[in-house]
C-alpha cells in the first residue's frame, strides 16, 4: 500500500484514522470507567468531601479559630460532634476548613506533578538524543534544589504561607514522574507498533498520545495517586519542622501534627484527621484503578 500512495497521503490517512479512533475511544473509556463501580463510588465520595470542605465557611458549625479555653480537648459530644482540640476549637469545623488546603495541596501536586512530569518525561524519552539529555539534566537540577530553604524564601516574601506551600509542593513533585515516564518510554518506543506508526509517518504527538502513553499509563496513574497522599503528608511533615501552614489556619497535616503529643490520651484528635487523609488517599487510588482499566489498551 505504501508503494502506491505518496508519503503525504499516508501521513494524513494515518492521522485521520487516529483521530477517529481517539474519538470513539473516549466513549469506550468512559463506559469502562463507569463499569468500575468502586471508582465511581470513590469519585462521588471525593467530590462530596471536597464540596463539603469548600463550603466550610457556610456549613461549618463554628468558626475555625473560635477558641474556648474552658473546653479544651473535650471528647466528641452532641455540641461538638468530633470533640475539640488543644485550644477548645471544634474539630469538625477545623476538619472541614483543613480539607480545603489539604485537598488543594494533594490534587494540585498530583495533577501538576503528573502533567509536567509526563510532558517532560515523554518528550525526553520519545525524542531521545539532545532533547533527552537537556530535559533530563534539567530534571536533575530541579531534583537537586532543596525544597526546605525554598519554602523559607517563598514564605518570607508572600503573605499567605499556605499558597507558597501549595506552589512549592506542586512545582517540585514532577521530577519522579518525569524519570519514570522517560524510563518506561525508552522501552516502549522500541515496540514494533511504534516503529510501524513512525514508518507510516504519523505525527510524533499522536504517536505519543495513541501508542506510547496508554502503555505506560499504569505508572503515571500510580505516580499521581501516590502523589496525592505524599503531598498531604509532606505538608504535615513541614508542620513537624515548623515550616508548614501556620496556625490558626487548619490543615489535616498540621492537625495531625498538633495531636501527636496527646494521641494516647485523646485519640480522637488524631483519628479524625488521620481518617480524612486515609479516605482521600483511598478514593484517589480507586479512581486511579478505574482510570487504569479505562485507559488500558489491552483490555
Amino acid at each position: 500500500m505504501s508503494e502506491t500512495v505518496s508519503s503525504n497521503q499516508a501521513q494524513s490517512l494515518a492521522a485521520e484514522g487516529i483521530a477517529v479512533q481517539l474519538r470513539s475511544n473516549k466513549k469506550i473509556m468512559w463506559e469502562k470507567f463507569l463499569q468500575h463501580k468502586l471508582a465511581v463510588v470513590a469519585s462521588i465520595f471525593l467530590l462530596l468531601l471536597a464540596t463539603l470542605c469548600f463550603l466550610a465557611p457556610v456549613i461549618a458549625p463554628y468558626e475555625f479559630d473560635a477558641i474556648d479555653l474552658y473546653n479544651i480537648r473535650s471528647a466528641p459530644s452532641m455540641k461538638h460532634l468530633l470533640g475539640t482540640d488543644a485550644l477548645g476549637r471544634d474539630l469538625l469545623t477545623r476538619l472541614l476548613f483543613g480539607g480545603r488546603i489539604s485537598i488543594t495541596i494533594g490534587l494540585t501536586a498530583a495533577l501538576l506533578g503528573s502533567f509536567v512530569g509526563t510532558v517532560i518525561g515523554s518528550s525526553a524519552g520519545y525524542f531521545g538524543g539532545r532533547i533527552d539529555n537537556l530535559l533530563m539534566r534539567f530534571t536533575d537540577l530541579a531534583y537537586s534544589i532543596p525544597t526546605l530553604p525554598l519554602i523559607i524564601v517563598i514564605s518570607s516574601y508572600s503573605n499567605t504561607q499556605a499558597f507558597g506551600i501549595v506552589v512549592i509542593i506542586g512545582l517540585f513533585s514532577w521530577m519522579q514522574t518525569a524519570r519514570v515516564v522517560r524510563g518506561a518510554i525508552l522501552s516502549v518506543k522500541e515496540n514494533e507498533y511504534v516503529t510501524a506508526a513512525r514508518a507510516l509517518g504519523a505525527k510524533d504527538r499522536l504517536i505519543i498520545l495513541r501508542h506510547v502513553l496508554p502503555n505506560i499509563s499504569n505508572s503515571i496513574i500510580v505516580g499521581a495517586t501516590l502523589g496525592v497522599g505524599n503531598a498531604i503528608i509532606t505538608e504535615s511533615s513541614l508542620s513537624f519542622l515548623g515550616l508548614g501552614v501556620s496556625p490558626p489556619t487548619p490543615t489535616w497535616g498540621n492537625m495531625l501534627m498538633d495531636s501527636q503529643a496527646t494521641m494516647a490520651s485523646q485519640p480522637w484528635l488524631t483519628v479524625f484527621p488521620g481518617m480524612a487523609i486515609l479516605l482521600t488517599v483511598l478514593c484517589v487510588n480507586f479512581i486511579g484503578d478505574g482510570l487504569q482499566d479505562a485507559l488500558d489498551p489491552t483490555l
Partner: protein
Amino acid sequence: MKTWKIAFTTVLLLTCVFGMVFAGGQKDAGAAQSADGGKKILYIAYDRELDLFNPFTSQMLCDLQHNVSEGLIITNDKNEFIPVLAKEIPTFENGGVVKNADGTYDMTWHLHEGVMWHDGVEFTAEDVQFTLDFVHNTPQVYNQSEYNKIIKSEVIDKYTIKFTWDDLYTFYPGIFEAMLPKHVLGHLSWEEIARYEPYNRGPEFIGTGPFMFKEWKSGEYIRIVRNPNYWRGPQYPLIDEMVWQFIPDQTARFNAMKSGAYHIGQIEATQVKNFNTKGLHVEMIPSNVFYHIDLNVTKEGGRPELFSDVRVRRALYSAIDRKAIVDQLLEGTVQIANSPIPPTSAYHNPNIKAAQYNPEEAKRLLAEAGWRDTNGDGILDKDGVKFSFTFMNRSGRADRIAIAQVVQAQLKALGIEVLMKEYEAAAWSERWRNSQWDAQVGGWFMSSDASLTNYYHTRDGKNGSNNFTGMGNPELDQLMLKADKTLDFNERKALLDRAQQILADEVVSMYLYYRDSPWVVSDSLVNFRGSGTNLGNWWNAYEWDLK
C-alpha cells in the same frame, strides 16, 4: 464484592494499628539501671546537641559544660551567686571591693589553693587572667560587653587576682562562670582558640570540675566520667558517669522518660498531667523565664499609630485573659506575671498594680482613645486606619504560637484584627533585631542580678541595646541605671520595685506568666536541687547520688 473486601481489609488493618497503641496496660518502668555492675551511671534525656564545648563561644546554654569547666561562681537553686573556684565573692563588706579616688573600683578575688586541672596542672590566677584576655579579644562571646567594663587586671600572686572596673555594676559577680586552661590553649592565637578542635570537641576540653570529658558521638550523646582527683575531696563526685543523650523531639523525649531508661529530662507543661510512671516524678522548677507580649512602638518598623496611646495598650492588656491561659492552656503549671522579675528573684515585686482581665474596661478605653467601628466591618478604626496588626511568630515554638492564637481570639471579640505570620528562626531574629514587626510573644531569661537596663532602657547606642520595642521612659531610665550601680539590697529593691510598676503602667510589654520548668527526675536521684537560672540544674552535680 470487591468493594467490601478492600474496605474490610483496610478497616481490619487499621484496627490492628490502633489496637497496638491503645490496648493493654503499661509495664512498670523501673528507672534506668547502670549498664555495668556497680558503676553509677546517670542517663540524661537532653533536648539538644551542643555546638561546641568552649563555654564562651558556644551559642547555647552551658549546663553540660559546667560539670567539666568550673568558674569563679555559679548560681544555686535560690538564684544566688555562690563561689566555686573563688573562696568568696568579693563585696564592700568583706573588703573585696574598694572604691578608688578616680571613681573606678578594684575587686579582688581569692582563689582556692591546690585546685588541679584534669591533667594534674594546678589552677592559678594566671588562668583567670588568660580567660579574661580571651573574652576581651573574642567578639562572639555573647556578653563580652560586660567583661569590657573591666579596664585593668592584675595577678597579685598565684591565688589572687585584682580587676579594676570603670564603674560599679551589680552583674560583676555573675561573670566568669567557666575557666579556660592557659597551659593547654596559651600557645594559640585568640582566633585559633575559637577554632581549636581538640578543645571545642573533646580530648583537650579540661576543667577543674567533678567530671571529665570521655566521649562525644556527634549527633547522639556525650559521656563525662568521674574526676577522681576532684578538689572538694576524694568522696566527690558520687556518680561515676553521666550520659547525655540528645533527644530533640518533645514527644519522643516524653516517651523516653516514660520508658524508664533515663534518670532526668525536661518535658512540656502540657505533658505533666499525663506523666505517671513509677520510679520517676515531675519536679516543677521555678525558672527565671518570663513570658510576655511585646508591642512595637518604634517609628521605624513598629505601629505607633496603633500602640503609641497608653490607653490602647492598657485596653489590650485588659482584654487578655491571663488566668485562662495559665489555668487552662498551661494546665496551671505556671504563675501569672505582672512584671519581668520573677518570684525566684529577691527583687520580685508582688504588689504591682497592673491591668487585670476586664473586657468592658478594654472597650471603654478603646472608645475613649477614639477607636470605633465606623464602617461596620466589625473591625475598629480611627482616621481611616483599621485596628489590625500582625503577630510575628517564630516557627516551631508551639507554646508561644498557642498563646498568640488565644490572644488573637480574645482581641477579635473587641473588634481588633490580629493576623499571624510565622518566620523560621534566623529570619525571625533578623526582623526582631531590626524592629520590623508589630507584636510578638517572647520568653526571656531574667539575669540573676535582675538588671532591666538591656531590655527596657531607651536605646541610645550605649544602653538598652536589646530594647527593640521602642520603650523609652526617662524616669524608668534613671531608675534602672541607678539600680545597676546600687549594691545595697534594700536601696536597690526600692528602685527596682518602682521600675517594675512603671513597666506595668507603660504596658509596652504585657507580662503573661513566669515559667516553671517541668523536669522528670528519677526517685533514685539524690540531692538534685534544680535551678531556674541560665546556668542550669547541674550546679551541685558533685553531690548528686544514685541510690
